[in-house]
């Protein structure tokens, strides 16, 4: 079985959970004997259209093609990134998505594969074109929809249309949670029988490395302080503004707490300003986007992890926190809550309840330990092998 897979990002070139998910899934597919040819738009230093990156594992081939399609990009950001009159890039995000789709035809013609699997909207058109050229079945994998990204704001009609067309032309639609499946049914009018829920997982072996606590954090902890952690893009969907508000409430009761935001994003400036306005600057640490060991260190140092997402189709970060022995508090609606029971849940807008729970976690080591103990046990069942098995079952049904 060979799968032609279209994505947006792949570690170490990732800025969010999608890359982590693609890595986890492809590795688990490889373990099941499935060959994956992973196509990735990426701004390359080389002046070539695409190149094959071969991994040590021969069943995974990464194919990068030169593009400005960076993950989580908006149309405005694309124009900014392109700069003035940059010769080789398309004029707009829309055109670049189309260019990706056109280039995918060449790949589809030249490579051998049995199934096409496309992750999220930037790659859907590429998937559709590949299907048209090769006649092979298409699976689209929805990790987030436009409705998650924009919150209550106006959606981009273009993005919505691409998502809908992808789902229409697909032979199977994979949703990362029941939460996302409902959105796909309600907002995109996809018949339920065409949608399968495949929950993400986590590879615990990735996170078990012993790491040293960063010196600055270590000093804070030695002085008797606790760390409350936010990991994620600083963007509306992830609720960083609620994190700041809950911090203010927590500090009324537990003054020896520091709040760490690990991530970057379009709301970063706004959040930093808000923290300053509340005079909490000396209580906040902004680490910027972290990956690998740096991210592990921050997890390890944390006493509590919060995911106050406004809309969260899945949310892998809480699972990562658990692998590091950190108890979690997550939005009630998050997709991950469908598979993770040993976590605290809140409504993202309920600042008081969030503070109530975080303070309880900080005050009672017994609560933290019991949560972690059971969550780690539960995590053994939330792994990529299960997700990969479901995908293979779907491929075989095509």
């Amino acid at each position: 079985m060979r799968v032609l897979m279209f994505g947006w990002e792949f570690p170490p070139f990732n800025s969010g959970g999608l890359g982590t998910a693609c890595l986890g899934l492809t590795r688990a597919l490889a373990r099941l004997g499935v060959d994956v040819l992973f196509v990735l738009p990426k701004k390359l230093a080389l002046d070539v259209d695409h190149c094959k990156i071969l991994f040590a594992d021969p069943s995974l081939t990464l194919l990068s093609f030169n593009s400005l399609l960076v993950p989580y990009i908006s149309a405005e950001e694309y124009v900014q990134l392109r700069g003035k009159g940059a010769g080789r890039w398309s004029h707009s995000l829309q055109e670049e998505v189309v260019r990706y789709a056109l280039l995918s035809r060449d790949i589809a013609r030249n490579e051998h594969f049995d199934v096409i699997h496309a992750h999220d909207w930037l790659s859907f058109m590429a998937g559709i074109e590949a299907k048209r050229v090769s006649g092979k079945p298409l699976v689209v994998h929805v990790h987030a929809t436009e409705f998650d990204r924009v919150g209550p704001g106006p959606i981009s009609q273009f993005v919505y249309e691409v998502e809908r067309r992808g789902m229409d032309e697909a032979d199977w639609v994979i949703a990362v949670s029941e939460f996302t499946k409902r959105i796909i049914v309600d907002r995109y009018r996809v018949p339920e029988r065409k949608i399968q829920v495949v929950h993400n997982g986590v590879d615990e072996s990735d996170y078990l490395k012993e790491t040293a606590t960063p010196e600055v954090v270590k000093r804070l902890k030695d002085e008797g302080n606790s760390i409350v952690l936010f990991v994620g893009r600083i963007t509306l969907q992830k609720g960083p503004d609620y994190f700041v508000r809950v911090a203010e409430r927590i500090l009324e009761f537990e003054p020896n707490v520091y709040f760490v935001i690990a991530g970057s994003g379009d709301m970063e400036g706004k959040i930093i300003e808000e923290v300053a306005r509340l005079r909490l600057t000396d209580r906040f640490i902004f680490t910027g986007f972290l990956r690998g060991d740096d991210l592990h260190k921050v997890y390890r140092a944390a006493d509590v992890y919060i995911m106050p997402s406004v809309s969260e189709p899945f949310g892998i970060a809480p699972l990562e926190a658990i692998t590091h022995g950190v108890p979690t508090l997550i939005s009630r609606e998050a997709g991950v809550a469908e598979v993770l029971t040993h976590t605290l849940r809140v409504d993202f807008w309920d600042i008081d309840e969030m503070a109530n729970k975080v303070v309880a976690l900080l005050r009672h080591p017994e609560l933290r330990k019991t949560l972690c103990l059971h969550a780690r046990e539960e995590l053994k069942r939330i792994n990529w092998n299960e997700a990969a098995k479901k995908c293979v079952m779907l491929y075989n049904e095509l």
Partner: protein
Amino acid sequence: MPAVCFYFQVHQPMRIKHYRLFDIGVDRDYFGERGEGNLNNERVLRKVANKCYLPANRLLLSLLHRHPEFKVSFSLSGVFLDAARQYLPELIFSFQQLVETGRVELLAETYYHSLSFLYSTDEFRQQVEKHRRLIEELFGVKPRVFRNTELIYNNEIAREAESLGFEALLAEGADHILEWRSPNFLYRPVGGRAIKILLKNYRLSDDLAFRFGERSWKEYPLTASKFAEWLTGHNGSSDVINLFMDYETFGEHQWEETGIFEFLVALPGELLSRRDNFFVTPGEAAARWEPVGELDVPHYVSWADIERDLSAWQSNEMQRKALESLYALEGAVLARQDLALLEDWRRLQTSDHFYYMCTKWFADGDVHKYFNPYESPYDAFISYMNVLHDMRLRLREAERRDEHHIAIKRPAAERQ
């Protein structure tokens, strides 16, 4: 000639409301949830009374009238009786009617349905005494048989029950304490003088309590004649078959639609129509039969969960912390002689609070989840610990008041 001994446990805890960080020091009404959910104690009591207690009591009363040989026994927890007196006095009346027939025995237990025996013998004795007084006041009878919370039992509890003057006590007929022996006889505890143990026949009891309405069970549907046949089958090899269960089995755990009430209506007649069958209450059983052997139970057993040990209340760190923190306040609470404070502290001892914090099997959505009015065991723990925090504040306030009191009194005394 097997006798059948029915014992029903009737208990409702005073559940703690969603008590948050912000309520500490402000809100002292820990049990006063008024909303729609299952933390509203009045609402739950009314619901269970309508589904179970009232219709089942009516039914038992008519059975007692119809069959002069029929007998049952109950234990009614003090917290349950308090709630009934406050919210639903007709419920007390309906139990009084049953007891007045003279064929309904009431058993003794800890007033607060507590785990006090595990933490404080003094407190345990106080609660047993308080419960005895309440039963006497409401029903005019003096219990002679003891059952500890959730049938928690070991050698020491038997000794303690004997020293308190009880003639018998109930325990779970768990396989690991009985080994090859039958639960259908009376036993003598190690070190006991005259006190006797009645053991629950858990297979036959659980056929009603857990399996009755289960369609996948191979014996489904269980009819009264079939069950009477099973019981009669013990003829010649048993003294007494003890059917011990939650009273809520009737109409609440097994819904009315399962036919559990029809079953109960038909059962006494079916049993009595077969040769040699009769009914006894626990006190009568103790008076009638001698123990057939000695039972050595050094470790605790209970009737909870498949483990039948203390793990339903003590298996994780949250539960142990909550229990330790609660009983650590004992000396300070008693020293205050503040009745409201004492009452709250005792209501916090009810075993259900710790059961709600149990994380065993939580993810599998089993019975713990079914009985849990909180979103998770963690939520139960958080509200509980916030309440204890407030209790400590109250104790400190009271201490300070006392100091103040002494400080202003002293000059007056000196003037004299």
